[in-house]
């Protein structure tokens, strides 16, 4: 059974007098896996609950395969949700939990039994049917919760941070299991998470949310490599920031040499979507610690941007060294293979593709 397409248009949700979703537009392709990514309070869970019908909508529309379901009750939406708390019914056995949705649909007892066995086998839970769910481990409960949702062949599977209560080691496996199941069944899935890596690994498309708005919507590569705002860049791991000055030239955007940085020119095609090649004025550069390289502090003028700084702190997280480098009054984190002493003067080389530039203004990081 192919999954259904979901469309959300101009969705607004209020909690009392507080607006939590400010006009969300989102289209989800049938059979795709979409992650709603953001920090807590960004509205991702509210969006999922509005789609599932648990939260009343103030304005906007939700459609599934073109059918308007904005006003439909949760049980008439053809969706199934997996909860962070798993929300398994403690007064039922594993088999009863999984079979509940089938029983509601008036399916014959034998057929339910067969389907439950099939689901248990698919989730590698054979023999657990008669057990009370209270006797299962966290990972097993998570799979029962998933099985309960999948048993009814929903058009759309909603996942509300289903992995956040699992041990880190199990979580890695479950990510791939869920992804494989979703692809095998061809079901549409919407996954809420605050875990960047989880979203990157599982989703076909990522929707980064910030303060009740969609900050960016794209493939994992797009969101990671071409963030549209300083917020997205920071959230996707480009946590180092440095203030620079830029002016437009024919070759692209030029970085003006400063007390702690060399000059550089970044070709227009290498610039991300965050800044115009004609920008004239202060910019904020975001970069990842692993995208920076260490350079000779005396290096000048090879066309790439080099920051001059001093090693403040060194640690070894495994595989490489990690340095906190002070550049002027800023501190940046740089990963490098070579061993340096604390206090050493050092250059930090940032190639064009490592830099995410955004205009330095009050509105930085916020889309209108």
């Amino acid at each position, binding site marked *: 059974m192919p999954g259904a397409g979901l469309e959300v248009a101009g969705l607004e949700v209020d909690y009392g007098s507080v607006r939590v979703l400010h006009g969300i537009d989102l289209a989800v392709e049938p059979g795709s896996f979409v992650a709603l990514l953001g920090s807590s309070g960004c509205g991702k869970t509210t969006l999922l609950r509005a789609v599932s019908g648990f939260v009343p909508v103030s304005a906007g529309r939700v459609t599934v395969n073109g059918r308007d379901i904005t006003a439909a009750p949760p*049980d008439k939406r053809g969706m199934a949700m997996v909860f962070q708390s798993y929300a398994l019914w403690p007064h039922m056995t594993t088999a009863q939990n999984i079979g509940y949705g089938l029983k509601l649909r008036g399916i014959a007892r034998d057929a339910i039994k067969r389907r439950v066995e099939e689901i248990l086998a698919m989730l590698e839970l054979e023999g657990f049917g008669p057990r009370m769910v209270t006797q299962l481990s966290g990972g097993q409960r998570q799979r029962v919760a998933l099985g309960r949702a999948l048993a009814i062949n929903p058009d759309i599977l909603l996942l509300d941070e289903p992995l956040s209560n699992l041990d880190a080691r199990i979580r890695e496996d479950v990510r791939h299991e869920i992804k494989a199941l979703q692809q095998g069944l061809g079901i549409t899935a919407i996954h809420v998470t605050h875990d960047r890596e989880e979203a990157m690994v599982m989703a076909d498309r990522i929707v980064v949310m910030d303060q009740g708005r969609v900050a960016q919507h794209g493939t994992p590569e797009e969101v990671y490599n071409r963030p549209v705002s300083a917020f997205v860049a920071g959230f996707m791991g480009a946590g180092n920031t440095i203030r620079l000055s830029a002016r437009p030239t024919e070759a692209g955007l030029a970085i003006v040499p400063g007390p702690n940085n060399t000059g550089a020119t970044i070709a227009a095609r290498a610039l991300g979507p965050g800044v115009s090649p004609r920008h004239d004025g202060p910019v904020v550069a975001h970069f990842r610690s692993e995208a920076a390289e260490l350079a000779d502090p005396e290096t000048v003028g090879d066309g790439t941007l080099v920051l001059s700084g001093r090693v403040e702190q060194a640690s070894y997280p495994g595989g490489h060294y990690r340095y906190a480098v002070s550049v002027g009054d800023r501190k940046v984190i740089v990963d490098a293979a070579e061993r340096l002493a604390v206090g050493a003067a050092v250059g930090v080389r940032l190639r064009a593709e490592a830099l995410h530039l955004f205009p330095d203004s009050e509105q930085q990081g916020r889309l209108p």
Partner: protein
Amino acid sequence: MTAALRWIPRAIVLGLVVYAIFGPLANLALWAFAEQWYYPHKLPVTYGLRFWHQVFKPRGDALESLSTSVIIALLTVALCLVIAVPAGYALARLRLPARALIMLAFLLPQAFPSLAVYINIARLFYGLGLNGTILGVVLVHTVHGLVFAVWITTAAFAAVDRDLELAARSIGASALRTFLTVTLPLAAPGITASAVFVFLESLDEFTGTYFVGVPDITTLPLLMFTASIAGNYQIAAITALILLIPSIGFMLVVERFLKADVMAKVGT
């Protein structure tokens, strides 16, 4: 030696507590089996089961009032649950601005001097023809029992995780179906406990029954009262023992069913 000395005050306190609890009970037990007991004797003169025969003789007052008491208690429980289950669910789930006020309102009948309240209820019931009827007594008991019923069922429903209901809704259960198959079974222990409380309250209730029921309705507490006024201490003691049986039995049930997670939500 000093250790033994330190035990003396504790032993005295324990002894007093035991005396305060079991003294009256022992007196009750003695009276129930005393055939003759008069001053200046410290203990009954003759023991026997004569009064038990009298109480339990076919068509005796005691058996009849026992059945009246049980019928009234069961009807009170039914009426309380019919009100308390929907009210408790609403109070636990819905965001009502006046929620605290509503919870307090159920406590109101307890807040005023009961004699004044019951005299006025009796006056009202006279006008409605409810005096001396089972229904009248059941209504009085219900008002009294509702505070336990509503507060405990509210706590029982509040202890049911909202996500458990949403999980059922999301895979296709209607609101009613969700309530019947998920919420109600999970709240059942708390609801049972509240029913037991109401049952016991009704069984023991005296004042309201006296004002609204007498002389047509005789419940066990009323029988006991009449017997002790008339100096029939044996009859009164035996009735009291009969009343004790369901109390102790149900307390054990309540103790099993009222879990800490429900108790923690009572009155919140």
